[in-house]
């Protein structure tokens, strides 16, 4: 038998121990070896976390519910970067557009703004384009993906691009919208099956109205988009057949497949394409049935709404009507769920059990060929999409830009995003963020599964309700007049057409530098 000295045994044991422990090292090469059978493609982490950042930035959010998450993110980030300060503040949602514009005009805007829409601030050259940064690797992500943009759910980076192809906002969360309904009122009206189609929805609304309750309370104002959101999804469906005729400036070898949502990835309808399409009559509400029918269909629901006061109340009042049991349905997004749950819990806690109703959510009823013959290529995708994100101010100080981008990479790394989305308010027990994350791998909040942003058909909305803010404001004036029968359908379409055309002409001026004028002139000549 081989005699092994104690010294030799000790050395062998030490070698064994070191070999075993070396399996736990964070050496990326070893990591790759361990995980090389994982389905996610792994790329060697070459980009180190920057350690030379020094400075201070402000991050402002519109949303009260995001303050705690962002404060946590700032805290975690500052723990990694001792010489960086990230200040998180909240600004009120109401009137934020005007506030931000004045802040940018006076160069007082925060470095990072967490907002809903960024494109208008790009047109006024207040924020930077993020395309190049998104192609860089994210040093904070452990997914192993080559580029920062690869950690986001498809196709939401593409969807956040403006007409010029610039990504102006790092997407953070997606919204889903569904029809919240009062189960108690539905039961009282004898509604057994939830409506799936528009005609079924009309029947159900009729039954609810017969019991004396307002089936659907809305405010016909910009503060309540309940009647506008259905138009968006209907227009996407009715104008789907027009996409190949409208999207003429596309990538080489592009072809449109209505059954494949990814077939429109990377494609955008530019300002000159829309203008040409309008001039051709394809998306002119007066000449295009695809554009006109959604407006006509939505008007059918007017008789089931709160017609006495829908031009006077605000969106918050319509929501309160649902909460107080005065209306049976409310078309709202994932963001409303915690408010509803906590209000109902409050009712129960304070003994108002008659007010604490059971609720459910169903997808918005789909229009079919019975309602319009323009659904040649598929039906309606449920309303879901990019809700908000982070935009970065255009700054002379490159260091601040660097810190801002680095912070955003940190916060949108899958691990950090997962942590932040799962944070719960200790007072209510509900998550702060109820929306769906744009970052891959973050599970949605329970109860919002019906609002998952499933895209069954390719959507590249050829023609829509409005093309700029002024058009949007004019839409609401015309919509009120149409809903209250002050103007006929034909007059409404004429006014919409005029407003749309004016907006498209303004867009041509706004995006003047990005427009292919030669192409546009040729197309317009061919029309003549």
């Amino acid at each position, binding site marked *: 038998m081989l005699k092994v000295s104690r010294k030799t045994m000790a050395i062998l044991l030490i070698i064994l121990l070191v070999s075993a422990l070396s399996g736990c090292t964070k050496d990326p090469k070893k990591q790759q070896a361990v995980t090389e059978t994982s389905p996610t493609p792994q790329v060697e982490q070459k980009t180190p976390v920057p350690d030379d950042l020094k400075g201070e930035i402000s991050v402002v959010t519109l949303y009260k519910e995001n303050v705690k998450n962002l404060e946590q993110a700032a805290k975690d980030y500052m723990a990694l970067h001792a010489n960086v300060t990230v200040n998180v503040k909240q600004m009120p949602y109401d009137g934020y557009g005007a506030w931000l514009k004045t802040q940018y005009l006076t160069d007082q805007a925060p470095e990072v703004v967490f907002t809903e829409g960024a494109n208008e601030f790009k047109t006024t050259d207040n924020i930077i384009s993020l395309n190049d940064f998104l192609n860089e690797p994210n040093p904070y992500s452990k997914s192993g993906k080559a580029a920062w943009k690869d950690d986001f759910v498809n196709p939401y980076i593409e969807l956040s691009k403006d007409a010029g192809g610039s990504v102006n906002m790092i997407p953070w969360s997606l919204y889903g919208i569904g029809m919240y309904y009062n189960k108690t009122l539905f039961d009282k009206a004898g509604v057994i099956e939830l409506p799936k189609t528009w005609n079924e929805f009309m029947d159900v609304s009729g039954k609810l109205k017969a019991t004396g309750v307002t089936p659907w309370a809305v405010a016909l*104002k910009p503060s309540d988009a309940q009647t506008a959101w259905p138009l968006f999804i209907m227009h996407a469906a009715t104008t789907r057949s027009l996409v190949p005729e409208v999207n003429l400036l596309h990538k080489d070898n592009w072809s449109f497949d209505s059954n494949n949502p990814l077939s429109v990835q990377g494609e955008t309808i530019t300002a000159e394409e829309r203008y040409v399409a309008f001039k051709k009559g394809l998306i002119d509400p007066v000449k295009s049935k695809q554009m006109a029918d959604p407006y006509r269909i939505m008007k059918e629901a007017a008789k089931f709404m709160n017609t006495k*006061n829908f*031009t006077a*109340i605000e969106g918050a009042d319509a929501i309160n009507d649902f909460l107080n049991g005065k209306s049976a349905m409310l078309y709202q997004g994932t963001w409303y769920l915690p408010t509803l749950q906590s209000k109902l819990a409050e009712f129960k806690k304070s003994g108002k059990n008659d007010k604490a109703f059971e609720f459910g959510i169903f997808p918005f009823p789909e229009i079919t060929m019975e309602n319009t013959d323009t659904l040649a290529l598929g039906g309606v995708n449920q309303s879901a999409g990019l809700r908000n994100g982070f935009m970065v101010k255009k700054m002379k100080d490159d260091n601040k830009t660097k810190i801002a981008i680095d912070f955003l990479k940190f916060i949108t790394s899958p691990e950090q995003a997962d942590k932040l989305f799962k944070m719960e308010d200790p007072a209510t027990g509900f998550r702060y963020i109820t929306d769906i994350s744009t970052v891959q791998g973050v599970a949605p909040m329970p109860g919002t599964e019906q609002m998952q942003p499933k895209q069954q058909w390719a959507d590249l909305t050829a023609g829509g309700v409005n093309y700029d803010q*002024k058009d949007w404001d004019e839409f*609401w*004036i015309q919509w*009120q007049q149409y809903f209250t029968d002050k103007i006929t359908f034909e007059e409404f379409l004429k006014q919409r057409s005029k407003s749309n055309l004016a907006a498209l002409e303004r867009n041509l*001026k706004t995006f003047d530098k990005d427009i292919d004028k030669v192409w546009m002139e040729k197309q317009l000549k061919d029309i003549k």
Partner: protein
Amino acid sequence: MMPLVKSMARKKYIYISLLPAFMLLVTFQYIPFFNAFYRSFFDWNGANRAEFVGLDNFIDLLFRNPDYLPSLGRMGVIVLVQILQGVIMSLFLATLINHVKSERTKYLYRVFVILPAVVPGIIGTLLWKNFYSTDGLINQILVFLGQAHYTTTWLGNEHTALLAILFMGFPWINGTFTLIYLAGYIGINSEIYDAANIDGVNIWSRFWKVEFPLLLPQTRLIVLLALIGSIQNYENILILTNGGPGTSTLVPGLMLFQYAFSYSQMGYACAIGILLFMIIITITIINQSWGRES
């Protein structure tokens, strides 16, 4: 020229002490005004795009924009009503207070009248918005008085929205204007009252033939202040109706705000502002000429 320079040199410290105030005035009042005048000839988005368009903004406003002229008409109605409210109610209250015998009571009334002025106006506007709601105070009063058939959505009905805005602030007592009238009353010589008493005038004649003519300077001032205030004011409308329903309460001041901050058409907004300025300056000149003649 030399005597002027010498005079200025002698009083140089006065001019030096005035300089900071003058520079602030130039920086924050005159430069923005002249800049707005300049920019009104441009299609300017307030940031990176400015294209010279000459009088196009003004021509569009006056001849092509379907909302501008009706908004001017509405503004005219609001101006007229608010001048009448400001003059009549303030004069009425000042007259009552002035003829109170006890000085202490007079003082107390003056305090009560001016006290609401310290409350931010927006609070009053929000309260009135609540009053006008479907379940608000106005409708409740109507129901209580057995007039439920008159209840309506005051701010949501295009026939009543403007009337609701005009009625806001009832009984329209303006503390500042009342104090201006009271100051005017203090300036009336008591001998005039003695003479009027000797002539045996009654209260009504005393007011119309003695007091009101002597309060004309104050009336002119109040008319001017009310005029400028109501032309420039749009905050109440922004909060109550935002120009709706439809465009039934849209006024030029609100249009200026929308074009500047919602539509990023700063040049167009400047043109609206310049036209408003021209209206105010014209009326001011007329008012001043009338004052000189009388």
